């Protein structure tokens, strides 16, 4: 009894010892920067004035949360996220259904549809920018005589289009794994019971796919909320098109204001954490690998 106990303990200790380096590295590379950002956010700290560093408590939070640029950027971020998500979901679902039912060249269809996702965002963004610039582009004069990237509404729309173009394939892929979960015989049974095509889709397929759909939406929401590259290349935040990430970058890297910039980073971190929390708690999104009921 005692020998097996001792052996068990030794085994566990060995287990911990073997895990420890990896765990420590994880803490060091992810935990430490987050803690350091939180610590910086309580300070007045501008790299240009290294001698004026001081602790200011929540002052930076008051400054950022009371600033109209921050809230404009926040609104833009939410708008881009929601618009993108809705469009991507509809398109992605359509694409997934097509790919799922493709009879010939299924592999080829799937590969081809993934190409936009494989292109580096910045590269794609540059080609979008040239396409939408009068004289150099083929899209600019399609709708108006002006330059669509210089007007706020059309610039935002173009940003959303660029994002949708890039990540719809990824959404489709995630949804396709959900489609694979729907048992054929269940659909056949519904058909025999007289369910129309639309009813089969909404009342059989969607409920079965729910876990996959929520995971797909969670991933894409978190991704979309951090939108950065497309905005920087297409407008560089002109005409009030900055997202919160662009604003944080401007203050932190361009402005060298570590205090204000870190405050923004912490706020973005909190927003992302809140989104993940809402998805998991309210909608019961399952983490990949979790049990069927979606809660762990």
């Amino acid at each position, binding site marked *: 009894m005692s020998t097996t106990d001792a052996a068990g303990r030794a085994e566990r200790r060995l287990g911990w010892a073997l895990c420890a380096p990896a765990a420590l590295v994880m803490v060091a590379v992810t935990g430490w920067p987050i803690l350091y950002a939180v610590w910086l956010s309580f300070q*007045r700290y*501008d*790299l*240009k*004035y*290294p001698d004026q560093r001081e602790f200011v408590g929540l002052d930076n939070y008051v*400054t*950022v949360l009371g*600033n109209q*640029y*921050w809230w404009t950027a926040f609104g833009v971020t939410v708008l881009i996220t929601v618009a993108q998500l809705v469009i991507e979901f509809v398109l992605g679902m359509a694409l997934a259904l097509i790919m799922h039912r493709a009879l010939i060249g299924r592999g080829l269809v799937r590969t081809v549809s993934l190409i936009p996702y494989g292109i580096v965002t910045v590269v794609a963004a540059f080609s979008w920018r040239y396409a939408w*610039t*009068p*004289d*150099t582009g083929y899209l600019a004069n399609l709708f108006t*005589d*002006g*330059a669509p*990237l*210089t007007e706020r509404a059309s610039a935002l729309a173009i940003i959303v289009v660029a994002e949708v173009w890039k990540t719809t394939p990824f959404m489709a892929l995630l949804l396709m794994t959900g489609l694979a979960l729907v048992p054929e015989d269940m659909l056949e049974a519904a058909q025999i019971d007289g369910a129309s095509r639309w009813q089969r889709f909404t009342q059989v397929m969607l409920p079965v796919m729910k876990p996959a759909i929520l995971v797909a939406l969670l991933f894409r929401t978190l991704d979309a909320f951090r939108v950065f590259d497309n905005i920087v290349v297409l*407008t*560089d*935040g*002109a*005409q009030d098109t*900055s997202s919160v990430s662009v*604003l944080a970058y*401007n*203050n932190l*890297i*361009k*402005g*060298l*204001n570590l205090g*204000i910039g870190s405050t923004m980073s912490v706020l973005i971190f909190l927003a992302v954490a809140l989104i993940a929390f809402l998805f998991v708690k309210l909608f019961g999104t399952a983490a990949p690998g979790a049990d069927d009921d979606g809660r762990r």
Partner: protein
Amino acid sequence: MRVRERDRGAVRRAVALGLAVAAAAGVTACAPPQSANTVNLYYAPEENLQTVVDKCNDQAQGRFKIVYHKLPRDADGQREQMVRRLAAQDDGMDVLGLDTTWTAEFARAGWVREWTGEDREQAEAGTLAGPLESARYGGKLFGAPKNTNVQLLWYRSDVVRTPPRTWDDMIEQARRLKAEGRPSTILIPGAQFEGYVVQYNTLLASAGGRLISDDGTRAVVDEGAVRALEQLKALADSGLTSPSMSNAQEDDIRLEFQQGEAAFQLNWPFVYPSMQEDAPDVARNVHWARYPSSDPDRPSKVTIGGFNLAVSRYSPRPAASFDAALCLRSAESQRFSAVEDGLPPTIESVYSGPEMAAEYPMRDTILEELRDPAIRPITPAYQNVSTVLSKLLSPASAIDPPRTAERMRTEVQNALDSQGVMP
């Protein structure tokens, strides 16, 4: 026992070998192979700078060997790379190419060394006052002006008979040309970026206005500043600009001008050699004049740009670095860069050099502007001030002069105090 002893020896050898391999890998991965007198120059991409570097290395006879590392093409990217590395006290950078507006910032943060003694005397000798002013901070010299820069009015001599002297005259001429159906567009870089702030600063200085107090601590934003806002607004509302004005940077308008629909272009002299190469048909008819003024009674005061060479605080080889920097900005090097890359020299005597007349025909107009230039506010917070200004000025059509000026006052003040949020 003996066995264990032998084991330990083997382990020790293995560890030693591992460390040696890691160390060797580390050395080769981090630093380029270099000798004790290597001077690492970090500078914006400049087409023929490598030739200047080679010439200096030949002349140095072993005192230093400059290695030219190209920074990113855009100004923000250049500054960010240097700032990131200097903040981490990187000793791999020796000579830095600083845009004139960064000198105060780098000096205040303690990232660059002061020029003193004989080096300082050499850097100042014969150098134009304006560029020298932009290399100073708090009465000390922190950079040796390598090249300066100043914008000109480029126009099509086949459609414009006499170049406009004033801003209003330029708009008027363009309006007439448009009515006649001839090339009429006025091209100006109006994107939300530093180059647009340069345009504003020129209009402001030409109107005799001021934005920031002389000591660089207070936002002033006076009448002249409002007048300059009115002029930008008038241009944007005239319908004579390019539709992509508010998304266009300097190179964008150069390309647009080369397509032949424009009559006027407000831009740096780099457009001249570029046009000769890319669009010789248009280039044949392109002439230049002093940047138009705001005020018919006095000539324009044009914002200067350019680069200063500074020596990093963390450079392990300061003496060789100052030496190398002086060679890179010598009169000989500047003459070469003027002819080959279109860069205006900072040493006045170079302008009267023999081959300049043929190769650098706009030198007299440039020198005329350089003798009475406008300098952008000298403050460590310039980057922040500029970001705020470009935001408030963009798009030009949305400017509401008195209201925009009021917002400038508060937001520029915040930027100077490194408080508030940059847009």
